[in-house]
């Protein structure tokens, strides 16, 4: 079965017969006469993939996206893996030539409108735009529209959502100017698709995206205030829980701009600074992915934790530029659309090239009646972003009371194209997000973009790559034959406090996963053999290891069988489980995309797949194989750590790893060695402990297989040479701490480690393993002390090395209380 060709044949027949409603609109592949469209002819004539190929490619895509850790969280939903369909949206060169001009013009126009609204406001005073359209829109930020403010280029990046009408014309359904997202996804889609469909991609001769991206980097740096030679840019993110965290982090990582959150920045002397381990560093450009209203708790929303107090003031003084400017959101206003043709004539002196979807404003002459008459068929929105009542009578009443507040847009019968749904190609409606950047003094659209396909028959929504085909394969990519000069070399990586904390916790989670798995594996093996023989040496050893494992898991959840190995491995809802640690690591990895090797995502992807596999197993017997796979995966992360530059970030990461290791060790040793159970059982338990701590080989070599508790304690607690011993870990922490910039030799973390090491030095081995009754009270006491000191140490490290200062709060407003 020939995938796309089959689709063409079927759609062709259907559209000729007008048999189903989905086929009555414009189809991207098939013309009205049933023949394939120009853009597709070349692709369909060649080695076009059949359905079997497409399914294979689809699986490869899923695998690659998983390896890259590409996630997306639709509003109100959990983060899930990004989805990309194997069939791209293809746009031919002739069509693009028109669109390109239209998109560039639109960005220029929106920029001119925003610039005017924040300075002279001539569009209002001359009556080109009814003032209520600007004033009622939430994106109009009055604190940026002060007298004397004048920013001729408030808009650096715009996105326009396009849908194709039945006439075949692309129409703009929405402009995104506040903080446009999606360029990172578009880049990733292309990277993946060009690899899984190399031949098709080559034959299509589509514009490569990389030159656009390079030019965008340069455009962002050029947005810096005048006179700065090598500007520093950062990407301001709302945090790892944000819908498009991947998009933000991937842009930061590939452009070499630090990904920061509000607490990493501070305003001082009217300038914006990045807190780094080397002190404050001046920031010149902020790629703002936080909506304006949340960007400055001092002057905008006071309850925001996502913004930097004083940012508006720094902007007004011209000491920092935002991409896009804080006020740019006003251009997302749907109420602007009906006025764009006149505004374009007036501000740019040319006719508007790219039309918007039919948009009707209630404040226009006859607008109120039009909205009320067509209420049910129009897509109704408000200027100020307020909700639309579901009750028709209430809606009618509101439109009648304040018609100027309402905007209605024509419902569009968008074009359709195939996407893989289940194991077949089905028609999907398609929407195309285009991106346009400021390029020198003009604007330049990306020949490509990000498309979204929504199934016409099912529920599926999936992204698509967009291939804009070149007129001649020899044409320069993106039409950028001359790259703009790069104004600065790769900005040296700086480590904001937020990333320092993430590095630390990444270290802890990596080791937590490894050590939990190392404990889980012998538990599982022993459980298979000794589950029903509790009194046997093996059964007792199992009980001891389980006790250690239980300590890592939630004890409070009475519903979970505390000894259930399946949930301990793969139930992310169970605190302390391997799955939960993997979820945490994956989340942290997203915000470290700009700091660490992309191999990290390969590992988290592999871990997630092994977890999925374990969840699908019917019996517990083979769970061990999945755990082995995970262990192999997490061990590969040692490579990531080894290849890190030996800077403060690496040290913080190593401290995290080492504290976690020490803490896991004491958690294991206390139940395992603190009690005497008879020589046969003890031997079994000690063997298991040595295996879990990877010290069996060393032990055998040193003690020739003679297992005594003193030897085990010596090797795992007091030994300064064994990398798995407590002392070794503490000495490592001591070294790393002393090399951190905030350390003075007497900081609390340093004092705590010194005390711990002194405690070990003062400990006499023979004394330590003395038995009283069944127990070894001195050993237990030492391990409990060390555990609680490690807690304090972790807390102290967070306070001294990872925190960004005291918390922020709004000052209470004085009430006006006079009669």
């Amino acid at each position, binding site marked *: 079965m020939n995938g796309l060709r089959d689709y063409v044949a079927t759609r062709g027949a259907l559209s000729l017969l007008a048999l189903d409603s989905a086929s009555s609109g414009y189809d991207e592949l098939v013309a009205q006469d049933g023949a394939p469209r120009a853009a597709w002819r070349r692709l369909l004539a060649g080695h076009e993939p059949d359905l079997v190929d497409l399914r294979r490619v689809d699986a490869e895509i899923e695998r690659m996206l998983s390896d890259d850790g590409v996630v997306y969280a639709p509003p109100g939903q959990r983060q899930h893996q990004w989805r990309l369909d194997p069939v791209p949206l293809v746009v031919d060169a002739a069509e693009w030539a028109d669109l390109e001009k239209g998109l560039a013009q639109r960005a220029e126009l929106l920029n001119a409108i925003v610039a005017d609204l924040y300075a002279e406001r001539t569009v*209002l*005073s001359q*009556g080109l735009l*009814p*003032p*209520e359209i600007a*004033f*009622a829109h939430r994106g109009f930020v*009055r*604190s940026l*529209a*002060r*007298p*004397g403010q004048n920013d001729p280029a408030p808009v650096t990046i715009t996105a326009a959502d396009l849908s194709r009408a039945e006439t075949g014309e692309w129409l703009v359904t929405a402009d995104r100017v506040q903080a446009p997202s999606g360029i990172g996804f578009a880049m990733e889609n292309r990277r993946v698709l060009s690899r899984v469909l190399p031949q098709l991609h080559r034959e299509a001769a589509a514009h490569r995206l990389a030159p656009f991206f390079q030019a965008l980097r340069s455009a962002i740096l050029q947005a810096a205030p005048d006179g700065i030679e090598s500007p520093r840019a950062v990407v301001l993110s709302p945090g790892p829980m944000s819908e498009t965290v991947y998009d933000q982090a991937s842009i930061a990582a590939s452009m070499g701009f630090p990904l920061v959150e509000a607490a990493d920045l*501070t*305003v*001082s*002397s*009217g300038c914006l600074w990045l807190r780094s381990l080397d002190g404050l560093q001046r920031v010149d450009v902020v790629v703002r992915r936080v909506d304006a209203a949340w960007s400055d*708790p*001092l*002057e905008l929303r*006071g309850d925001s934790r996502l913004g930097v*107090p*004083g940012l508006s*003031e720094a902007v*007004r*003084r011209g000491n920092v530029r935002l991409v896009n400017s804080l006020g740019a959101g006003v251009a997302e206003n749907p109420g602007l659309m009906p006025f764009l043709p006149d505004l374009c004539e007036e501000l740019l002196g040319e006719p508007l090239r790219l039309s918007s979807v039919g948009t009707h404003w209630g*404040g226009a002459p006859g607008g109120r009646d039009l909205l009320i008459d067509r209420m049910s068929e129009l897509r109704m929105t408000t200027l*100020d972003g307020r909700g639309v009542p579901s009750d028709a009578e209430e809606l009618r009443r509101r439109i009648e*009371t*304040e018609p*100027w507040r309402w905007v209605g847009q024509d419902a569009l019968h968008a074009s359709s194209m195939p996407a893989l749904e289940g194991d077949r190609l089905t028609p999907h409606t398609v929407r195309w997000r285009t991106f346009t950047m400021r390029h020198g003094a003009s604007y330049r659209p990306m020949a490509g973009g990000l498309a979204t396909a929504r199934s016409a028959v099912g529920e599926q929504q999936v992204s698509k790559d967009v291939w804009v085909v070149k007129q001649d394969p020899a044409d320069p990519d993106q039409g950028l034959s001359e790259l703009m000069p790069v104004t600065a070399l790769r900005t040296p990586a700086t480590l904001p406090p937020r990333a320092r904390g993430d590095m630390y916790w990444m270290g802890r989670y990596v080791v937590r996963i490894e050590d939990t798995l190392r404990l889980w594996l012998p538990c599982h093996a022993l459980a298979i053999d000794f589950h029903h023989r509790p009194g046997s040496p093996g059964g007792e050893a199992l009980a001891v290891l389980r006790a250690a494992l239980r300590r890592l898991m939630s004890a409070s959840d009475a519903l979970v069988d505390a000894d259930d190995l399946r949930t301990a491995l793969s139930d992310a809802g169970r605190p302390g489980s391997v799955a939960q640690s993997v979820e945490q690591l994956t989340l942290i990895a997203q915000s470290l995309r700009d700091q660490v090797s992309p191999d990290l995502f390969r590992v988290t992807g592999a871990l997630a797949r092994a977890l999925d596999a374990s969840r699908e197993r019917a019996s517990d017997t083979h769970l061990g194989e999945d755990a082995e796979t995970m262990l192999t995966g997490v061990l590969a992360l040692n490579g990531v750590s080894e290849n890190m530059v030996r800077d403060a970030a690496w040290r913080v990461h190593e401290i995290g790893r080492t504290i976690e290791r020490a803490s896991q060790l004491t958690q294991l040793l206390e139940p395992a060695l603190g009690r005497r159970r008879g020589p046969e059982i003890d031997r079994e338990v000690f063997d298991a402990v040595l295996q879990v701590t990877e010290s069996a080989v060393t032990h055998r070599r040193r003690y020739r297989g003679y297992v005594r508790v003193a030897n085990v304690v010596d090797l795992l607690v007091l030994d300064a040479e064994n990398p798995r011993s407590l002392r070794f870990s503490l000495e490592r922490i001591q070294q790393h701490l002393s090399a951190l910039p905030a350390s003075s030799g007497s900081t609390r973390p340093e004092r705590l480690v010194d005390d711990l090491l002194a405690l070990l030095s003062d400990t006499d081995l023979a004394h330590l393993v003395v038995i009283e009754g069944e127990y070894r009270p001195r050993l237990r006491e030492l391990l409990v002390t060390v555990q609680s000191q490690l807690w304090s140490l972790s807390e102290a490290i967070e306070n001294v090395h990872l925190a960004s*200062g*005291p*918390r*922020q*709060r*709004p*000052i*209470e*407003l*004085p*009430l*006006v*209380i*006079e*009669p």
Partner: protein
Amino acid sequence: MTRYQVQHRTSYSYDALVTSSYGVAWVMPRRMPGQEVADATVAVLPEPEDLGISSDYYGNEVRYFHVTSPHTELVVDAHSVVDVATVEFPRALLDRAWETCRPLGSAEPRAWRAVDFALESPLVEHPDSAREYAAATLSPERPVGEAVSELVHRIHADFAYRPGVTSVTSTVDEVFAAQAGVCQDFTHLLLSCLRSHGLAARYVSGYLATTPPPGRDRLVGADASHAWAAVWLGDDHWLAVDPTNDTRVDDRYVTVAWGRDYGDVPPVKGTVFTTAFSSELSVYVDVQAV
């Protein structure tokens, strides 16, 4: 012309050190027809590391400050000498039919600026309660001066002055439910009544003189900041009225700033970095006729 010496001191004290404090303050009387500012200073203590003075979107003087020396008390202390005259409105303006003073869709050259004050604002919504309450007064073609006076009078009669029943974020509907509030609530209420019928009206913050000029009655409890409203009568004419005292604004009133509602021009607002859990605010206002 009456001359006043004004002092407005806002202080915050915290139960732990504040290491960084950002603030914006609208505490300087503004220069405008009928009001001259002779002498004006604002002191922030501790001494700010950074201080900015600028004109806000509405032309009010606003101060930005950043205090970086660790402190447990912050003081914003404003002193000024202000000359105020009562602004008289020509009869013809006050007699305009109220409908002709609506800026939306108006052809008057300055109407577009007034539109900002005819729309809903963050703290002044247009609930049906306010629209219906005002409809009884805004009968067709009624002279605007008379209609506004009547609304002010009704609010004064129907709502009780009672501190503590509302907060800085109370909505118009909440004030209707309580049938009580403070000057800021009555001002927001009046704004909602006028704007929901298309009139433009702004929120004005300022002070009311404590010591009355000779021959006038002393108004109660005037030693605090005050708020009232001003209604657009076309061109750049704004009729200022005080719903709390049921009166037209005259030379007893010192104007500091105006905006769409309280949120545009609070005397002081800020963000502090601290481990403190609570702070105490005290405000001292003194307006002396000299």
